[in-house]
């Protein structure tokens, strides 16, 4: 008989071996799946996983997708470290997009040098305000953070939809729900002369480093880590749980807001009803794949960006339906999270146990 036994401490070997194992299992599954559909499995895997990085345009697009994922995931990693179960990055991102757009639309006919900084600031502040609501409710009324943040996601979405159908709608747009195009002074500078990679990905990388430094080098980071792993000990040591909670939530809200405003002032260039394909939710996966570490989040956000793009490319290059792509991606994520099980647990045969 084989049974599951908890390890006394986390296995370092498995922490590195688990992703490798997951990828091998996924490749096997993918080969079977694509062969069953009469698609060349080698080509399919190539298109899904390697082609997104095959030329300058695709790499730049990978960064475009990575930026918002990373910004949200870095903030969420800090929240989860401190046991603040913030599921609201999506809403905070949309609030940032909305607030930033409201500011950007004041500069439609202007090329003021203040246009972009004010727009970004408005986005960050909006995201922070949106994160402040559930934090206030939790700290003062002990409301459930998971529920309030999820509900605020929908409220943010409907606020955005209302605004884009109403006050922020393009007066010259024939009544269609889109804002006017932002002026060039309001758009984030593009980093290369081809493709759309913009300053947003630089913000994301910088803040990932900042978060890493905060966590590993500062007293505040130490408090977050202690509070997250043993709250009573942190309180006994005199750490203020309120201060920690406020810090991680506002940090995460600000970054998600920055992600939102970087989308509308970046690749989209205007406020539209659809700003995010669910970056705030996908960032939860990124945070966990990155093991709640900002450096891990960088790797994981690149990985998820590749998966997103590979899905489109598989349709274009090989006519693989989106449902099959979704299945492949789901299985890959499942294996990745499932293999992590072996970091904390191991399988032992019961006979060994008796002996």
């Amino acid at each position, binding site marked *: 008989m084989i049974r599951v036994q908890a390890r006394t401490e986390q296995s370092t070997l498995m922490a590195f071996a688990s992703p490798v194992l997951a990828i091998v299992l996924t490749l096997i599954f993918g080969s079977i799946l694509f062969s069953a559909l009469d698609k060349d499995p080698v*080509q399919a895997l*190539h*298109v899904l996983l390697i*082609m997104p990085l*095959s*030329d*300058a*345009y*695709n790499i730049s*697009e990978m960064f*475009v*997708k990575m930026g918002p994922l990373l910004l949200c995931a870095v903030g969420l990693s800090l929240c989860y470290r401190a046991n603040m179960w913030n599921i609201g990055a999506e809403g905070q991102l949309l609030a940032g997009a909305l607030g930033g757009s409201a500011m950007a639309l004041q500069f439609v006919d202007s090329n003021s040098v203040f246009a972009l900084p004010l727009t970004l600031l408005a986005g960050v502040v909006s995201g922070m305000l949106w994160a402040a609501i559930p934090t206030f409710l939790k700290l003062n009324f002990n409301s459930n953070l998971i529920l309030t943040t999820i509900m605020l996601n929908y409220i943010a979405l*409907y606020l955005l*939809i209302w605004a884009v*159908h*109403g006050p922020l709608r393009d007066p010259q747009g*024939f*009544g*269609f*729900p*889109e804002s006017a*195009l932002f002026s060039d002074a309001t758009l984030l500078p593009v980093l290369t*002369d*081809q493709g*759309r990679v913009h300053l947003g990905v630089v913000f994301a990388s910088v803040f990932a480093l900042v978060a890493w430094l905060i966590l590993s080098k500062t007293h505040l980071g130490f408090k977050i880590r202690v509070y997250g792993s043993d709250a009573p000990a942190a309180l006994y040591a005199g750490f203020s749980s309120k201060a920690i909670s406020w810090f991680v939530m506002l940090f995460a809200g600000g970054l998600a807001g920055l992600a939102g405003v970087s*989308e509308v002032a*970046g*690749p*989209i*260039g*205007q406020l*539209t*009803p*659809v*700003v*995010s*394909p669910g970056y705030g939710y996908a960032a939860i996966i990124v945070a966990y794949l990155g093991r709640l570490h900002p450096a891990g989040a960088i790797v994981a956000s690149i990985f998820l960006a590749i998966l*997103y*793009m590979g899905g*489109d*490319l598989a*349709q*274009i*290059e090989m*006519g693989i*339906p*989106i*449902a099959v792509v979704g299945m492949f991606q789901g299985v890959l994520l499942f294996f990745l999270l499932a293999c992590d099980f072996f970091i904390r647990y191991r399988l032992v045969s019961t006979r060994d146990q008796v002996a």
Partner: protein
Amino acid sequence: MKLKSLLVGLGLLAGMGTAYAEDDPFKVGFVYVGPVGDLGWSYEHDRGRKELEEYFGDKVETTYVENVPEGADAERVITQLAKAGNDLIFTTSFGFMNPTIKVAKRFPKVTFEHATGYKRAKNVGTYVLRTYEGRYVSGVAAGMLTETDTIGYIGSFPIPEVIRDIDSAFMGAKSVNPNVKMKIVWVNSWYDPGKETDAANALMDQGVDVLLQHTDSPAPLIAAEKRGARAVGQASDQSQFAPKAHIFSVRDDWAPYYISVVEAVMNGTYKPSDYWGGFQEDMLSLASINDNLPDDVRAKIDETYEKINSGEFHPFTGPITDNKGNVVVPEGHTLTDQELAQVNWYVEGITDEIPR
């Protein structure tokens, strides 16, 4: 620099192992906002794509990308279709307008066609359905069938196309039933079975007994079937979902347009335009008209269809007054397509306000 990197990119793509025949087929790409599924907006575009392939055989090769969000992703997907060597790309949702225009600038040799938009360029045309024609016939049927003199309309978004169709349906109903009233519910979605069901039930709770919808799911028909009301199907033939309640479906048919555009681009005769297709162009049809309709209703449906189809009658012919008392279409004038694209008023008799 740009051209060079593009060539490098194309070279890499070609080296991917996709072997093309000597005689390259004409490549056509499609971008869908939803999954293809079994019915509705994107499904109908895909039906058009399949008919296009059937019509041209080996001469045309098509590719599609489904479920493309209308945010930053659209531009990448359209670019990748252009990079993959497509000669003509159809982008089939309003939210793809600005991304299409942006990509078209970078790929001047590729032709782009955008459904339902208003921006055009040297290599970008637009196309749209005269859905108001089907809507007028739906209104006529609804006006005759309602016993409570109250018909319901499930709206998606308050954009000109939807406002125009509400007006058209109401004018149709009013033409056969002077006492008719219309109640409108907005669901702010093109496809949301849950919300559409709620909207349908809320309307029926208020005495509505015929439902019209500007959304894609069969949910309102199913709700109507359960409560003994009637409803008109949208975009696809939805008769199977409500054998008793179904009046008819106004079915979209994009194939005639897709075939004509492909032909024009292949022959070099293509010019971007703002194309409107309806009954006459075989791009709209009344599918599965229910056998259980009373004879007079059936006759009136056929008569109205024929009048619109022959061009004898246009629903937006003056005099038309809006519900605030302004004359919006003077006597003797018929709205031009350009004017139709900007309708933002409810006709007289609709006791509601357009959400702003």
